[in-house]
């Protein structure tokens, strides 16, 4: 690591900040690559397919009838901002997977969205209370630009894994890189290990 002439770093480090991140405070930056889709909740669906005992699909009303689950905590974007103390309401991915019954061969998931964006995750990063499908952020419905009506939330990984406008999961027996992963970003994306790009 090369020291930059004249750079001392201005801010005292908050222990909640992973390395290389800064506190976005009251801002919630938006950075996505697609045009912001406008999704009608009357036609919105979320499904689980692939290596499952029974493919399942939920409508907007059906997914809201499932037991609610809340995440309260921090989020981290690979573009180096973090936000502390957010709350997201939705349903645990565990609840959704229980309904579909992952087959023993399933090791990874491809995350599908209504915009065509994809990302990939080991199944272990989606289970055990670590991931949600959420529709409220800080008590208000998710806005379109933040992935509304619903997005995936995987807060222990960089936020490109928390796919906006999520439409489903496809369970696989191998890792299938998604949009950013094919374009140089890390396959897993742990902020505390600074897994930003391939090779980190």
């Amino acid at each position, binding site marked *: 690591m090369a020291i*930059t002439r004249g750079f001392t770093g201005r801010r005292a480090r908050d222990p909640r900040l992973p390395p290389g991140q800064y506190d976005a405070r009251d801002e919630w*930056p938006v950075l996505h690559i697609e*045009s912001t889709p406008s999704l009608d909740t009357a036609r919105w669906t979320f499904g689980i397919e692939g290596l499952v005992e029974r493919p399942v699909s939920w409508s907007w009303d059906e997914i809201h009838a499932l037991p609610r689950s809340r995440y309260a905590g921090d989020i981290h974007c690979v*573009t180096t901002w973090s936000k502390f103390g957010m709350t997201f309401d939705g349903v645990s991915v565990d609840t959704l997977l229980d309904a579909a019954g992952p087959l023993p061969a399933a090791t990874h998931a491809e995350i599908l969205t209504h915009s065509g964006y994809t990302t990939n995750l080991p199944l272990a990063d989606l289970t055990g209370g670590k991931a949600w499908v959420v529709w409220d952020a800080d008590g208000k419905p998710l806005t379109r630009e933040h992935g509304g009506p619903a997005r995936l939330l995987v807060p222990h990984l960089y936020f490109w894994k928390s796919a906006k406008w999520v439409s489903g999961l496809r369970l696989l027996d191998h890792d299938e890189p998604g949009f950013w992963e*094919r374009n*140089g970003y890390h396959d897993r994306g742990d902020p505390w290990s600074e897994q930003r790009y391939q090779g980190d």
Partner: protein
Amino acid sequence: MSAPTHRKTLRWQIARVLSVRDETPSARTFRLALPDPRPHLAGQHYVVRLTAPDGYTASRAYSIASAPSGDPEIELTVERLPDGEVSEFLHDVVEIGDELEVRGPIGGGFFAWPGDTPALLVGGGSGVVPLMAMLRHARSIGRPDLVRLVVSARTEADLYYAAELPGPETTVVLTRSGRGRLTAADLAPLVRGGEDVFVCGSPAFCDTVTDLLAAVGVPVASIRTERFGPSA
């Protein structure tokens, strides 16, 4: 079946600052010499990482402003953001001859123009940076006819690359000192049909332009946006 995928490993390298140039009172272009140059596409970006003696680091991504040229040099244009830890350092401290740690090019084919298809480019504020790389690329390969660039800026003083913008392929809209915001009437004559459309700017700018383009018949699927900045 798993299709074979191309996974690129990007390493940090130490670039030397060759020149520093003001674009506007709040934007500056840094020309960097790369010891390990990699070909880039117009529209990709680099990450700049600053490291303090105690190991503290701060990094930010900046769009490449220069055209792919085969030179081992790139230009990054950096807007000075209020309280911007990295942008303020780059503006206030960095001088010719300094070394900066960089990694790139980053960003795949999605928001990148390969240089062989018609493209309509619409940029607001600092969103013009990756689009300027595309225009420069088109001009350098002798195909400016492929590109139409629309730039929205507040005033003449806020216009990036002002000296290079005049041309048959460019339209400048000044929203404060000129005749107001971009309209569908500005865009309609520039749409040829079948082009790729690249829109870059604030989230509000991108959404407005996407709506305007849709209103004049551009298929939304052909519009690629790159947005940045805080949202309300």
